[in-house]
């Protein structure tokens, strides 16, 4: 299919420009072997429109900067090969649910920082911090692996954009938030348990807001088992005999 013409339909809007309104703009490009949406967008900007806004950093699928909606699916643009779209038509939209910076660029950074502050998404030590001169505390190898498994989240925002609840309720913490809580409750170094997160977890903003549509798990570019994490937290809360929910 190399050498075919691909048609890009790209969402355009500059919210800082007083007279600008959202519109779709069409571009055409000759496909090259191994072309990704990252390569294509950079080529379009260089050759056709110097005002096109989008975000890439690592271009290798690890930093989470370039999430956008590609033919209806929130995903990472850097690792999306153009050849996978047999029609040769590619429609690019910014991730919904985040502040629009311009065109395909959204402010996921601001969202993730405020989510982290709201959830206290950091390790709260169970005891006093051990001296770094001493031999480190041991940890079961399997526990370390399980923590890493949930820590592989790259905060790209795809799960938020793919989630019906998040689209209806701004305050829903989404799979990214629930996964974050699961990560810290799994960690024996952290003094908190699910109960300590009850104020967000135990209501519509938390596990009970999830409608189990599995959009998060479908869209997650790292293939995290987000539904399992949400179920884990539900079970942890429900199994607490002292809590009436």
């Amino acid at each position: 299919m190399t050498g075919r013409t691909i048609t890009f339909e790209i969402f355009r809007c500059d919210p800082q420009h007083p007279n600008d309104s959202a519109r779709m703009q069409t571009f055409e490009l000759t496909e090259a072997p191994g072309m990704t949406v990252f390569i294509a967008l950079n080529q379009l900007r260089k050759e056709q429109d110097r005002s096109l806004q989008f975000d890439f950093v690592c271009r290798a699928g690890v930093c989470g900067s370039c999430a956008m909606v590609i033919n209806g699916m929130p995903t990472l643009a850097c690792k999306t090969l153009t050849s996978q779209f047999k029609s040769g038509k590619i429609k690019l939209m910014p991730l919904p649910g985040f502040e629009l910076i311009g065109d395909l660029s959204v402010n996921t950074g601001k969202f993730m920082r405020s989510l982290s502050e709201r959830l206290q998404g950091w390790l709260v030590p169970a005891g006093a911090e051990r001296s770094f001169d001493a031999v480190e505390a041991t940890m079961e190898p399997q526990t370390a692996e399980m923590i890493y498994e949930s820590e592989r989240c790259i905060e790209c925002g795809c799960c938020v954009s793919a989630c019906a609840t998040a689209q209806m309720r701004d305050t829903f913490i989404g799979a990214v938030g629930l996964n974050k809580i699961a990560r810290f409750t799994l960690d024996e170094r952290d003094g908190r348990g699910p109960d300590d997160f009850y104020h967000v977890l135990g209501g519509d903003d938390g596990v009970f807001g999830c409608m189990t549509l599995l959009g998060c798990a479908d869209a997650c570019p790292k293939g995290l088992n987000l539904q399992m994490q949400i179920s884990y937290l539900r079970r942890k809360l429900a199994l607490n005999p002292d809590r009436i929910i």
Partner: protein
Amino acid sequence: MKTITTDALIIGAGLAGLRVALACQAQGQQATVLSLVPAKRSHSSAAQGGMQASLGNSVKSQGDDETAHFIDTVKGSDWGCDQTVARMFAHVAPKAVRQSAEWGVPWSRIKAGPRQAVINGKTTTIKEAVQTHGLIHARDFGGTKHWRTCYTSDGTGHSLLYAMDNKAIAAGIEVHERVEALQLIHDGQRCQGAIVRDLVSGELIAYLAKTTTICSGGYGRLWSASTNALICEGTGTSMALETGLVPIGNPEAVQFHPTAIVPAGILVTEGCRGDGGVLRDVDGHRFMPDYEPEKKELASRDVVSRRMTEHMRTGKGVKSPYGEHLWLDITQLGAAHIDKNLREVKDICNNFLGIDPAKDWIPVRPTQHYSMGGIRTNEKGEAYGLAGLFAVGEAACWDLHGFNRLGGNSLAETVVGGMIIGEHVAAAAKQTDAPEEAVAVPHWHAVAAEIDALLQAEQGNDPYDLREQMEQIMMDKVGIFRTGTELEQAVVELEQLQRQASELKLHNRTRHSNPELVEALRVRKMLKLAVAVAKGALARTESRGAHAREDYPQRNDNEWLKRTMVHWRNDAAELSYEAIDISKMELPPGFRGYGEDNTIAHPDSAVRLAQVEQWQQQYPDATEQERQQALMPYELPTLLSQPNQRRGVGK
């Protein structure tokens, strides 16, 4: 002029920047961090394989200590590094790993009992001791005597950066995202912050600070093929160069990583080879043992990259539409190991190549990877030439790496450098008076004028075209193997591009978020740095570490055991040199152990070696501390100076 005042301004929110910020905050100094992108998207996140620290826990790490780490680092640097810095670094690295474990990094841990590992192409059984169960593990990396690279699967940088940024959020440290520092504020003596452009609103802000620390990473994007993230454009380094006062150290010391995938140029970790992967040629032959019978695939990176290039030149490369490549074969490690310890590698192969590394060989070739050079600093991280300015991590030439960095030492440097230099930054901020707004005014106006001129120019060159030409010149003429003829051409061509960059014309005249304006501002900075790299490489008529001159294949300690210093003066790169004093070395220059020894020795090397040996014979019972004090004393902040305990060693 909008101003923001803080105690410690930190430019760059990767691991080095965040760690400096935490050190400042811990001492009651307000830290403000600037970042082009959200902190967790920094290039630190891309480090896969691990971080070197001599914990000595695993059975394959037994006997490891700071001295072994120090020796490996100095040899790896081809004696180009600052040995005092290497000592300080090796001492603090275990603390950095252990502290990050307390902060949340889920380091991969040792499981007691037997396990299968692939060593030198053969599946071998390794048995871990019961008393080490659950301690932090280490994998093998190139150029190290022991297995020393601590890791979390192959997402070590990601885990560390997340732990560090989470800690910074908990500490309430402000990270101003999507802003770009464009010019340092200074009065010719002291740096007092930076003029910063908000990349969204376009607003120019004067950040005034008692100390300014540049942690903006390397300059890999000067080359068209680099493993670096797109934001690694060296503009922070170039901003220091542009003052005319601060020199760049060893800009020509540039590392090419042996295994980036073809054609995307994305890195697959050295952990692939550390865990037992091998390199093969067009015939499927494992060729590295032919060149390096002892270290094979785990020779130092510069050596493996050169051997691969040499081997392709003999016609043994694999032809492809994207040029020649070789194969990285990790199939012998098996799907289970790859699924657990090389997950990112698997994802990268799957996403960008459509292959399964458990079954298929990976097409790889050497690709630009790391900038050993950078803003020249002393042992405290203070930049030469301007008081109050510091640099840490890849942006700096602290000079831990000399002419070749060992795998796993960069991630370690970001955190360790952040810990050590962070203490000095905090101390300096405490002792310094509040900055003066008046100093910022001319700098603010200079940047505003530059932007106005760019937005108004009716004619000029295209910034994207200049950038593309620069990248190609760097690739073709300032690469793995270098010659005087090519470097001369490169200097002439790059200087011409640099002049052309003074007149640029933009299509996009938007004052706020404008990617073309960003490109224009950056390409000017990048071209200055490119000229510095090429000039430094042309002048250095020897081969040392990653700087390989085909016309000068010998390492020439007699004439070249010195650091290149580049100042930007009268709109040109000006070279000078800083001697590296052999008489103060703990480990005098010797044979690095690859190929044949063709070093042109410096007469002082033998003298110093005799001194060191004589001392050791004279005081066979001296303690480690006494020995260090006598041979090469160094000073660390008190907080970081205590000995490191080890299981079983009892030190």
